[in-house]
Each structure stands twice: as C-alpha cells, then as structure tokens.
C-alpha cells in the first residue's frame, strides 16, 4: 500500500514553502500527500496512548476561498494527485478529529504560532507532542524550500537512534541517495556504538548503504555540525535518553535542531518501523 504523508496547509507564502517541501519529499519517496485545509483553529489527533489538541494560529484559516486552488496548483505542478483530507468525526462541533494512520507527517517548526515568531532553535510544544506520540516519523521542514540530495543520520546508540538508522536505510534504498552517518562519541567509546550496530544485526546494512560514518571525537558538538551537508535530509531520533525521556527531546536533538536549518525527519519513541 502506498505511503501517505499528512500535511496541514497554511495558505500563505510560508505555508507554500512547507507544502513544496512535502511535495518534494513525496516525489522522492513515492508517497502521496494528504492535505488538510483547516476550517477551524483547532483539531484533535488521537494517537494510541495520547490525544493532542492542535491549536492553529489564525493564518491557517486565511483566504479560505483560495486555499484549495493554491494547494491544488502546487500539487499538480509537482505531478502529484490531489487529495484533501476531510474530517469524518468530530469530538465537538468545532473540534474535528484527525486520524493518525499516516506514514509521515509534515510540520513546520511550530504549528501553533505565527510564522513570524518562529525561528531556528524553536520547535513548538505541539510538534514535540506529535513527535512523542506518533507511530510515524515527522518531517520538520526547513524554513524555506530546499531540495536534498543526500541523507544524514545522527546515530547516538539509543533505541530511537537505531530506529532512525533503519529509517535512513529505507529512505536511502527508496531514493537511491547516499547515506552518511554522524556520531558524536563523547564519553562513550566508539566500540560501544559498533557493538550496538552488531547487536541489532545492522552490520550488513551499514556496509551496504552507508557512504561514510563520521565520528566526532573532539571539539564542541555544535561546531562539528558544520560537517553535515546543507543539502542533506537529516534523520534523527528524539526522546531517547534517560529517565525523563518522554518529556524532553534530548540534548543532542535540541542542539541539532537549533543549529542546522536542514529538513529534519524525526523518529519518536513510539515510531513503528515499516518495511
């Protein structure tokens, strides 16, 4: 069954950049976009063990008369079939439910705040809740449309990082793009990362898919991020460390998202890998 990417359309120039990014992702991945044009400023997403209310800012409802034509135009230009999502169920009369049986979801860095307030280094709380609860990876798009021609996976050894690595393999296989892996060794020895790869039976895939495994043993983590190609789709796991893993993204994740402006594909703790 074809993969589906869920996209909430914002009918303004910023929203156009995000939709273009989704279209590009779908074309690369052979997925089909499912576009939701909101009629209300809030909706609910029911995940397996959480319900997240998304409170959109008013810009999502701007110019409703042109929203469909703008989105259709962009999708058709991208050569993709047009499919709009119409909520079938409502928790309250002005509170539609959005199901979560998608394979990907595209989000700007924040979907609850005005685009003018959003800057690098800020990921909104709702996007974080979605990442935390979703069974699918979340594509956090770069502020402006940006094509990617390679894949970069951040591998820190955690269970989520392993999932991110597997997703990287899959995307590399489906797109045919080269895959680089980045690891900041820190206090842990390199051997332990290699052991994780071995324990997870990923050695064969590492040899087959990975172009280069970049190991950062020295220097400040943020400074090392300069090595990440600016045209890479960055894949990484979130919420993967420590006792409070379900509350914070993880320190490395925060540094990455606040330092680089690439498209990010984030794998949360409830992500279920599909073949």
């Amino acid at each position, binding site marked *: *069954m*074809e993969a589906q990417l869920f996209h909430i359309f914002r009918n303004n120039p910023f929203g156009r950049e995000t939709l273009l990014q989704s279209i590009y992702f779908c074309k690369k991945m052979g997925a*089909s976009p499912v576009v939701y044009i909101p009629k209300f400023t*809030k909706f*609910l997403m*029911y995940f397996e*063990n*959480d*319900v997240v*209310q998304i*409170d959109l800012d008013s810009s999502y409802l701007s110019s409703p008369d042109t929203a469909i034509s703008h989105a259709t135009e962009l999708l058709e230009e991208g050569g993709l*079939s047009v*499919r709009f999502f119409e909520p*079938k*169920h*409502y*928790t*309250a*009369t*002005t*509170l539609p*439910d959005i*199901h979560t*049986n998608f394979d990907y979801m595209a989000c700007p860095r924040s979907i609850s705040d005005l685009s003018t307030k959003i800057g690098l280094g800020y990921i909104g709380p709702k996007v974080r809740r979605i990442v935390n609860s979703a069974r699918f990876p979340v594509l956090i798009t770069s502020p402006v449309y940006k094509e990617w021609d390679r894949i970069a996976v951040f591998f820190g050894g955690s269970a989520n990082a392993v999932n991110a690595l597997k997703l990287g393999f899959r995307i590399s296989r489906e797109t045919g793009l080269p895959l680089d892996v980045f690891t900041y060794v820190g206090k842990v020895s390199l051997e332990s990362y290699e052991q994780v790869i071995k324990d997870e039976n990923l050695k064969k895939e590492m040899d087959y898919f990975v172009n280069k495994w970049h190991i950062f043993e020295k220097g400040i983590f943020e400074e090392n991020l300069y090595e990440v190609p600016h045209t890479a789709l960055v894949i990484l796991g979130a919420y993967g460390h420590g*006792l409070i893993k379900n509350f914070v993204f993880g320190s490395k994740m925060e540094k990455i998202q606040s330092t680089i402006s690439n498209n990010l594909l984030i794998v949360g703790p409830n992500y279920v890998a599909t073949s």
Partner: protein
Amino acid sequence: MRIFKSWRYPASWKFFRLDDRLLLMLMAVIVGLCSGLAALALNRSLIAMFNWLHKYHHIWWAFVLPGIGAALSSLFLEKVVVEGAGHGVPEVIYSVSRYGGLLRFRSSYSRLISSCLTIGSGGSAGPEAPVVMSGAAIGSNIAKYFSLNDRQRVTLVGCGAAGAISSIFNAPIAGMVFSIEVILGEWKSVNIVPIAIAAVAGTEISRILQGNQIVFSHLQFNIDLLDIFACLGLAILTAVASIVLTRMLRSMYGISHKISAPIWVRAAVGGCAVGIIGLFLPVVLGEGYHAVQAMIGGTFSQGLALVAIATLAKVVATALTLGWGGSGGIFAPCLVIGSLAGLTYHHCLILLWPSISWVNEGCFALLGMAGLISGMLQAPLTGIFLIVEITGGYEVILPLIIVSAISTSLCHYIEPASFYLKELVERGHLLRPGTDARVLSDLNVREIIEEDCITVKQNMLLRDFINIIKISPRNYFPVEDEKTNNFLGIIHLDDIRAYLFNPDMYDAVVLGQIMDTKVDVVHPDDDLSEVLRKMDAHQLFSMPVVSNNKFLGLISKATILDQYRKELVVQTSQ
C-alpha cells in the same frame, strides 16, 4: 534505578501480572480520590463565590452578575484553555465509544473553573457534569501516564466519573450507577468492581473533608396507595418537563448561534437575561440547592401560581445559561425543576381533591426530582439511586421506581436519545460496546484488504487471460493501464463465461473490450459501514480498493464477516 525506570509501567510489576484486576483496583482508588478532590474543590469554590457575591444580590444592577460570570467563563474556555463550551459529558461518552477513553489533560480542570464562574455568579446550571468531565479526564490521564491499555483506560474514565459524582453528592451507589449506565453503557464485572472502589474512595474523601451529611434531609413520609396512584400523573408531568427542557436547551443553542457575535457576548446576553429573571424569582439563580432543600423540607411557602411560574422560569433560565454559552451541567437544574414540578403537582392535587389527605409536599418534590433526572438522562437507575441517597428516603422507593420508569419510558418514546446522547446519536457517533456500529468502527479497510489478486492489462488477449485464470484462486481480475498502471475496470468470471467457451474469441478479444468499467470502488479511508451499505445496495460480494487511480486489493463480504466476528469476540469477552 530499575525501580525508577519501571514505576510508570505498573502492568509489568510482578504483583500485578498475577491479575490485571488488582492493578485496576489500585488505580481506581487513586482516580476516585483525585476526582473526589476535584469535585470538592469545585463545591467549595462555588460556596465561596456565592458568599462573596451574596451581598450584591439585592442591588438593582445585580442582574449583570450572571452575565459577567458567563462571559468570563466563555472567554476562559475559548481563549485560555481553547475548549468548546458545554458540559462535556457527550465528549466523555464519545471518547469512550471511539478512542478508548482518551481525554485531554486540560479537561481535568477547564470545566471546573468555567462552571465555577458561571454558576457562582448566578447562572442556572449545575456543577455535576463539569466534575464528571474533570473526573473522567483525571482517570484518562492517569491511565495514559501509567501506559494502561484502552480497556483499562475506559474503566478508569468510568472510575473518575463515579468518584466525582459520589463525592459531590455523598452518594456512592448513584456515582457507580451513573458511570456504568450513562458513561460506559456496559455492565461487566471487570468495570463494576473498580468503579465501585472509586465511588467509595470519592465518597470517603468527601466525608473526611466535609462530614457525612445527607444532601437534602427531609421529614418522614407516610405514603399510601392513593399517593402511589397519584405518582402516575407526576411521572407524566416530569416527562413533559424533561422534553420541554431538552427542546428549549437545543432551541436556545440554535438561536444563539444564529447571532454573529463573539461567543462571550452571547454568553453575557444569556447570563444577563437570567439575572433579570432572578430579580423577580431568585429561585432560578445558581445551582438552587437551597430551594430544593426548602421544598423537600416542606418550608417552601409559595402558592400554586408562583410555583408553576418558577418551574417555567427555571426551565427558561437553564436554557438561557447553557444554550447561550455558559458552562455547567443539567443535573442541578433538573433537581430544582423536578422538585418545583412535584410541588406544582401537589398543589394541583390539593386544589382538585382538598378532602384527601395527601402525603407531604416534600415527597412529591423528591419524586419530581427523580422523574426529571430519569427523563433527561433516560437512566432510571441513576434517578432512583441518586434520589434515595441524597435524601436518605428509602421509604419512597416504590413511587420513585414508578415515576422514574414511566418518565424514562415516555421521554424515550418522544425523544429516543437522552439529552447527553442526542447529539452523538444524530452524528452517528454513539458506539456502545458490542453493537454493530462499534464493531465496524474498530475495523478499517486497510486491515481487511486482500492483496492476492492477479492484475491484468487491458491489451491482454483472452487466450493469455485463460492461462491466468487457471492459476488464480479468485474470480475477480482487476484491469490496469499498460503504461500508467492506473486502474481501469474489473473482470468477473461470471460476466465473461460466454467468451471462455468460444475458442474463436481467444485471439480476437482483448480484456479492454470485455472488462466492466462502471465499478463501484472503495477508498482505503472509507468507513466499513459505508462499504457494506454500498455492497448491499448493489448486491456486491467484493469491491476493488483503489487509491490515486491505483488498484490496491479487493475487499470482500466474507472477509469482513470473518474480521467482524473476531472483533465482536474481543469486544464482548471479559
């Protein structure tokens, strides 16, 4: 460290792995206590607010107080917590029906604050539905925090509702029965035991902090056979009052939504209207428990005309408060309207048959409350047990049963769905466990799609097709475009039998000529109930699933039935 890591997953503890029910019992105590505390917090806040505003009530401009309260309540819900107005009980039932009881954390406090503003300022509404919403959300979020499964979460939602009602009324049985009868809609021991425990916990916390008091104490009633016969008329009167209240609430809601003003302005208008009524008839203001106590105690010394007018005024005031955007529930207004209706009925009886020695008017007030609660909620057991517990009046149990049963039946005849369920039923969202709609809603096309079909191209010769038929276990063959692989139509063996037995056609016919292009197709996101409706309407046994013009598989009635049976077994098993 391991303890810290596993403490959020109690289901994995060795102790609870022996029996899941033990886990639910422990959780039920926690949920019952928390929801009981939430209910008490609202109760205390209402008393404090009422006392604070009491000194202003005799001033002429006091009519704006309910308007200000309703506007603030509406603003709080709309702008601060970004939730819709309303009491929230349908939302709880909807969540239990469709999403395993998942409720937002903000719901555990939002309605408490908003209803406190509405009711405390004099709006005609009750605090019970908000505390049900709050208790249910507390249960849901505790279940979520401890990563419990859907079934356990639904039970804890019920525990939260039971704990809240038990606490606010000091009535454990009513809390338990309300939760099972109205919220969950299924009587199963796996639910009943934890809910009973939560009801006890909620009641105990209330008794510890507020004392063990009967909410509405009353005199001894000596009921004879004639009084019981008279109850038949009261049951009809309360059923009529229930229907009038239900319809007026909905019509007020409709009228207010036709006005293109911000919701807080509408709430303020409704509240001010209530305030004006309250200037002349103070009984309509607030939750009205003082008036109920006076009526049950036989100290409500008003004549027939005034009591009848007060009944109508309370109906209108409740509709104005809740229909125009105020926050609160209908429990307390039902108790007030019911007792006023009972009192009106008693006055009428005395007027018509002055020589007969009727039972005390408080008894009719009490029966009227049961009749109205049962009629509005269409939950007779809740009505009976609630009134017995909050009045301590077990001696009225026989007329209580009669009034509740008749009122429920009459209301059900005129309005098939209760006040709480009407909107859900109209939207097709009431999915009680084990029902056809619920089973179908838990299945989806993606789960039961059959992908083992052999697709063929439109330019294929019949001769080649016959070779494919030989190896295919199916009678359906989807036809795709050679270049784009788009779905074009379908071939069913029954439709082409004539060609199959005519060898002259083997090299003369291509599949594009004999395929059926006018095929009803299914999309992967379609509801199964809709798919089945299409199949029945067109007498189909299988339908192709198509998305983006690509054939994905077949969906057949046989597979639906098979999955339906499995799902039904899961839902109806303990």
